[in-house]
């Protein structure tokens, strides 16, 4: 039931827009909540993974005999234990991938493609014995030349990672394999001519490095595979249905044979939408006949899980004298690590999606290198190109002498404008965000010496997709919501708010559970800025079905026609004013037709992109190049903030990640292709003293396709910060720095160079 015209429920609201304590809050502030690493079962063994020390090598042989013979070792697994698979593109969290690559990411077979690539695993009666066993595994490697730089990887003489990858998107298809899985392109109008006739052109070559989502909880799972073929997996994940589907595909199992239990998750940001450990833990468990826990250390998380791609972006963007954008040419390369990740498409769509621009030519390449394969990281593929575009727009504004907000307002997309896909935009709010930024006191606050202000805007597509929501009533009329979307940032609270609002009952009378894969129908991952929108819709529709049932039951109890019974404030009201409360009706449910519950599975359509505008003030110490963030404001069109505090939290968290991406985060590699900073000491994420308070403005342009007007909010906040920070540094120093991160030595070199 997808009513795109829909009608937004009229206010005023009792719960939507309020800030109640989240239902899982007490558990989380007292340490009682069970996160991935906190879970254990009886008889559990401890697994450990042996990882490649080489960036690129052929595996000639693995001798596990000594490890298997160590007392306490109950199982050993290598790539040979994985079933042979046919190449097949499967949905993988927020994107897609070949199931063979997904399998090889869990464990290498013929080759290792990055430092940290899993090659073997053991399960033992203690973690210590498991580690000792790893040291007894002998792997015969033939070390191969490696390549880390994407432009180098594109050359004909580059070391070749895969024999079977031929660039898609080129006509005619190439005959020789390469490290370039895909080329994407978009063209409209005549960009070259438009640029030639432009009054001002800003051009640049921009680069960004690999950055990690940086969730504080490392990956972990417990798997228990029984002799009858049925299995259970306990894991923290953004999508336990994704774990089920991918593990079943990798191991050749029926999906109903795997029950995945969602544990509390300590951060994901897109990086926990797939699988790494689950098939390995499953195989160990089957061999050992016991449950197995496999956990990553922080070092393993950095070396072997998926970061955001690094990028090289060259662009030229031109405008008329009045600031109207006339044309753009963008060429970008996304460094996707060891396996294709379908990253370039996002860059294509998001690069200029927030502006009206008749003439554009964008070409993107996805390139493979000997690094861990990239994964989604909050608005995957958007921040990199946005950094380049918004930096260039800043330069255009300077060249033309136009205020940066005015330049963007002149060209901002509005409802009805065509998206890159051709489909017109619905009720979007980029203009409202720009106006809110301009009106904010931050925009006109005075600045001191060595201080500068930067602004940037951006968008993220968001998503809808399939979700299942269930609402049921206990015999006393209190409500139970079940959803299959793991709660990574307060979504239980939002579901409770939406259900309570719909039912007309107090917030505390609706409790939310995240159900496992055996207990509820399918939901797509918690990611893609989809949960409040899509799972919310399912929950609301289920609540509406429950209301319809309640009205029927009341009508039967009163012996009147159901369409004469109104439902308001949790109460059935007869035409003459007689009332029955939800509790009174529920108490009679068994006799009036049975337990009152509803389940809705839907594919939510009508999602709208989120637009964001960020303002950043920095102070640069010209002697040291150190950049301090003085003030930050994040403006975003959120549709409707169901729980404003958690929506603010998304804006602030995404901004903080973007600031880290801009200033200090980057993967570093040595000459052997090994990651040098696989820890929080030298992978420098912002700490509390690095940031100011982050002011937020939640612009609300409601989405007509959601009963409460919701738009996805989680990802757009990471898009503008890169350029907002870079533009602020430009304003403070007079220098355009096109290479991220803006570490002090780079800023110093630019200022003094």
């Amino acid at each position, binding site marked *: 039931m997808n009513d795109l015209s829909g009608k937004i429920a009229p206010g005023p609201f009792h719960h939507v827009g309020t800030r109640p304590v989240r239902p899982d809050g007490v558990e*989380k502030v007292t340490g009682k909540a069970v996160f991935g690493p906190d879970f254990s079962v009886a008889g559990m063994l401890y697994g450990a993974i042996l990882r490649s020390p080489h960036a690129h090598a052929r595996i000639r042989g693995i001798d596990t005999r000594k490890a298997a013979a160590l007392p306490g070792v109950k199982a050993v697994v290598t790539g040979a234990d994985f079933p042979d698979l046919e190449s097949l593109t499967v949905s993988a969290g927020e994107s897609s991938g070949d199931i063979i690559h997904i399998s090889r990411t869990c464990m290498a077979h013929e080759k290792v493609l990055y430092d940290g690539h899993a090659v073997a695993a053991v399960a033992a009666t203690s973690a210590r014995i498991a580690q000792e066993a790893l040291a007894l595994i002998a792997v015969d490697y033939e070390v191969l030349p490696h390549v880390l730089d994407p432009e180098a990887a594109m050359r004909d003489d580059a070391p070749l990672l895969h024999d079977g990858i031929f660039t898609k998107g080129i006509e005619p298809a190439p005959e020789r394999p390469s490290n370039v899985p895909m080329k994407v392109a978009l063209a409209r109008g005549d960009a070259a001519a438009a640029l030639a006739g432009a009054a001002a052109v800003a051009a640049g070559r921009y680069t960004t490095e690999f950055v990690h989502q940086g969730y*504080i909880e490392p990956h972990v799972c417990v798997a228990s595979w029984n002799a009858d073929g049925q299995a259970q997996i306990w894991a923290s994940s953004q999508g336990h249905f994704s774990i089920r589907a991918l593990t079943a595909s990798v191991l050749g199992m029926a999906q109903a044979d795997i029950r995945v239990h969602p544990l509390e998750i300590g951060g994901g940001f897109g990086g926990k939408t797939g699988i790494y450990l689950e098939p390995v833990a499953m195989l160990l468990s089957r061999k050992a006949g016991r449950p197995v826990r496999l956990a990553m*250390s922080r070092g393993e998380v950095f070396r072997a899980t998926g970061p955001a791609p690094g990028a090289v972006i060259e662009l030229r963007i031109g405008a008329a004298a009045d600031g109207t954008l006339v044309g753009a040419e963008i060429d970008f390369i996304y460094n996707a690590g060891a396996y294709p990740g379908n990253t370039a498409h996002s860059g294509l769509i998001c690069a200029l999606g927030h502006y009206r621009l008749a003439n554009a030519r964008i070409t993107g390449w996805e390139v493979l290198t000997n690094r861990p394969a990239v994964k989604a990281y909050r608005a995957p593929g958007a921040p990199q190109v946005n950094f380049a575009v918004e930096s260039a727009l800043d330069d255009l504004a300077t060249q033309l002498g136009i205020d940066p907000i005015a330049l963007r307002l002149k060209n901002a997309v509005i409802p009805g404008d065509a998206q890159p896909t051709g489909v017109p935009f619905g009720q979007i709010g980029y203009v409202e965000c720009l106006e809110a930024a301009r009106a904010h006191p931050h925009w006109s606050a005075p600045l001191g010496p060595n201080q500068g202000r930067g602004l940037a805007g951006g968008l993220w597509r968001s998503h809808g997709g399939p979700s299942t929501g269930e609402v049921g009533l206990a015999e006393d009329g209190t409500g139970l919501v079940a959803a299959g979307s793991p709660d990574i940032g307060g979504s239980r609270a939002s579901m409770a708010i939406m259900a309570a609002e719909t039912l007309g009952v107090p917030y505390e009378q609706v409790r939310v559970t995240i159900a496992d894969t055996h207990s509820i129908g399918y939901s797509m991952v918690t990611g893609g800025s989809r949960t409040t929108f899509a799972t919310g819709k399912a929950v609301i529709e289920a609540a509406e079905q429950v209301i319809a049932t309640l009205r029927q039951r009341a009508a039967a109890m009163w012996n009147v026609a159901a369409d004469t019974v109104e439902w308001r404030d949790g109460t059935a009201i007869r035409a003459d004013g007689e009332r029955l409360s939800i509790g009174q009706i529920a108490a009679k449910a068994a006799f009036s037709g049975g337990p009152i519950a509803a389940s809705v599975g839907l594919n939510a359509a009508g999602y709208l992109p989120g637009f964001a505008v960020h303002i950043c003030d920095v102070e640069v110490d010209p002697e040291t190049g150190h950049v301090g963030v003085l003030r930050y404001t994040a403006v975003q069109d959120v549709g409707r903030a169901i729980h404003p505090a958690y929506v603010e939290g998304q804006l*602030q968290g995404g901004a903080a990640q973007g600031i880290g991406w801009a200033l200090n985060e980057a993967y570093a590699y040595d000459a052997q292709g090994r990651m040098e900073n696989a820890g929080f000491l030298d992978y420098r994420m912002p700490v509390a003293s690095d*940031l100011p308070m982050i002011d937020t403005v939640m612009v609300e342009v409601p989405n007509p396709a959601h009963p409460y007007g919701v738009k996805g909010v989680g990802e757009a906040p990471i898009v503008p910060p890169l350029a907002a920070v870079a533009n602020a540094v430009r304003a403070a120093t007079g220098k355009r720095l096109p290479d991220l991160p803006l570490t002090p030595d780079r800023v110093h070199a630019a200022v003094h160079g």
Partner: protein
Amino acid sequence: MNKLVIAATVNGDPVEFLTDPGGSLLDALREELLLTGTKEGCGSGDCGACTVILDGEMVCSCLVFAAEAQGRQIATIEGVAEGGRLHPIQRKFLDHAALQCGFCTPGFIVAARSLLDRNPDPSESEVRYWLAGNLCRCTGYDKIVRAVLDAAAELRQERRVEGELAA
């Protein structure tokens, strides 16, 4: 392979547990004492998720040998609330939505309590620098700092009231 038997006091209770000689206090708390509220984020003292109070001072329990706990007093997140009564810091974290995934939250609450026990009226900057050893990736720290400052205000008010009552 000889395990040591360690006797210590955890959250006011005398406990005994086994440890490998090289095992960490963090692992002993989580695996032996089943106090899983204290988390491992990095194992190298760079994230603060494993923060506990050891003889009155906050430390990273991943950087303490379990054997060093012999005869010492340890306080963890599980001991912050008094029975069923949440500490003001815990309540303010909930009120201010100062947690999203909640994984770093125990470390922050223990660290914040350690601050407010010493400095009842910290500035925003003092709060940020005290908590610089606790990483959060979800919140950007804004609401955490607000929650700590608000808890400090409430605790000062409580002490004023107690002082007046005692006078």
